[in-house]
């Protein structure tokens, strides 16, 4: 009796192993090289090299002097604006807005802020002060710009 041929199957078996190997190697590579990048931004702050030598400023408004006082461990011990004490950075911002105003007719563009900080003060406080005087963040996330001209007083290294 002649052998009866088996009917050909429609299903083609593809060996998936090499593809899965490669794919898992790719995943491993991407997982190991993954690095999270934190968004960073810049502040452009001027610092005069030395005390002004009798130069007359062209600015019509004298600079607003913000003094940041450090405690023994470098923490913030006090803030003052043009000599008058300020409770915190929110109040500093409020006082500055009262002084220069916002919107049309604002004097923010022409006003300069000079930051006079104690040597040992933690730098974090300076950035908070810069943030407070640079702009107001509205509840919807928009920023109302305040002072653009910010400068540091020259550093004063403590004696001893």
């Amino acid at each position, binding site marked *: 009796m002649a052998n009866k041929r088996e009917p050909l199957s429609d299903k083609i078996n593809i060996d998936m192993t090499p593809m899965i190997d490669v794919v898992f190697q790719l995943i491993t590579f991407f997982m190991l090289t993954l690095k999270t990048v934190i968004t960073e931004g810049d502040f452009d702050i001027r610092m005069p090299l030395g005390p002004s030598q009798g130069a007359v400023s062209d600015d019509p408004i004298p600079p607003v002097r913000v003094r940041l006082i450090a405690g023994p461990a470098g923490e913030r011990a006090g803030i003052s604006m043009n000599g008058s004490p300020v409770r915190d950075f929110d109040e500093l911002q409020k006082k500055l807005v009262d002084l220069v105003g916002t919107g049309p007719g604002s004097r923010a563009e022409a006003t300069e802020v000079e930051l006079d900080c104690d040597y040992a003060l933690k730098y974090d406080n*300076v950035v908070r002060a810069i943030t407070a005087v640079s702009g107001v963040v509205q509840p919807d996330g928009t920023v109302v710009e305040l002072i653009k001209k910010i400068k540091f007083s020259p550093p004063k290294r403590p004696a001893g």
Partner: protein
Amino acid sequence: MARRQSDGPSKTDVDMTPMIDMTFQLITFFVFTLNFSTAVQDERLQLPMSQLAKPAEGPSVDPITLQLMSDGNVIYMGEPLPVEEIGGYLENEKRVMLGAGKNLAEATVIVRADGRSKTGDVQELIKFCQEKGFEKIVQRAEYDEGK
């Protein structure tokens, strides 16, 4: 005659489709989140945070990154140095840039200072840069999304 059961292993077909789908989705995720940026971000530093520290629109021109740690040392080319010694290294940078015909006024010095470092040290660092003729000095902070 009773039917004899086959002794060989029975072949079970596993459906690989869901696993391959998921794997390719993972690969797609990793490819899209792949970051080619060469931004210097040292994990030893804890940058101060600000809601107004918006990222720069374009890359800085001839950037020189100086990283000030909380102990007062500056990380320059991966090595920690006292602030007072950075002047010599900046002099080298200046010489190289001038030798390459670049304008010092256009170079950007990026100061990445730890939030716990002394403000005076940050100012000293900026002063050293200014004394060497670098004019464009920016202070970097971490963007605070305020969430």
